[in-house]
């Protein structure tokens, strides 16, 4: 496996990403298929997904850098490796309570 965050294998991975709150309103959908460069067969990273979302939705502006990601039910950071079939979620800073 190559270092995460660096595209490899020449291919693209497609990951289904659930989105919430203001992000869902901006994108007009509660889930989208994000295509990002693979770092190994069938795998990409959170950082690459973030870049890909920013590229397809430039209207996010500075919100893109503040978006949080989760893989399964745990927070992930930009270096986290994601498989195409992982449960991935992406959302703005939380405001419960």
């Amino acid at each position, binding site marked *: 496996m190559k270092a995460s965050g660096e595209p490899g294998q020449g291919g693209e991975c497609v990951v289904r990403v659930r989105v919430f*709150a203001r992000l869902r309103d901006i994108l007009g959908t509660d889930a989208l298929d994000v295509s990002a460069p693979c770092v190994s067969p069938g795998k990409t990273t959170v950082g690459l997904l973030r870049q890909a979302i920013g590229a397809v939705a430039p209207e996010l502006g500075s919100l893109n850098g*503040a978006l949080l990601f989760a893989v399964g*039910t745990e*927070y992930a950071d930009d270096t986290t490796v994601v498989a195409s079939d992982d449960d991935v*979620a992406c959302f703005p*800073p*939380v*405001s*419960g*309570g």
Partner: protein
Amino acid sequence: MTEGTPRTLPEPLLHVSLTEQPIDYTALTERVRSHRAGAVVTFLGTVREFTAGRRTLALDYEAYEPMARAELQRILAEATEQWPLVAAVVEHRLGRLELGEISVAVAVAAPHRRDAFQAAQYVMDQTKRRVPIWKRENWADGGTEWVHPPEGMPQRPGDAAE
């Protein structure tokens, strides 16, 4: 941790819930009461009419439910590692809330009051910081607006300890 309390308490009772129904905080408080606890702290978050001078009509709460439940469970487990607790429970309301309604309730029981206060504050602080729930303001002067922490606040869970 209060000195003099042995860490030989039985496994604490923990409970997490997300609900669209009004929160029954008396039932929640009764759930943590115990002959082993000398102190019970219950916290209620309620829908406030004014925020920075602007009037709210109602709030809509939305969650990424499976992760919100998992995160709340982790927060309670962390609290029981840091303070000797008898029980710790948290419920969060989802959907439309009117003024004065309860959005979140935490109840903690411990042998001693300082532990109960600190643990309840920890659960609330971490809930607001980490649990994937969002609220949308419905303003009296019109319009709706998702609430997200202002710039400069720690945005990534774990970035800052309180």
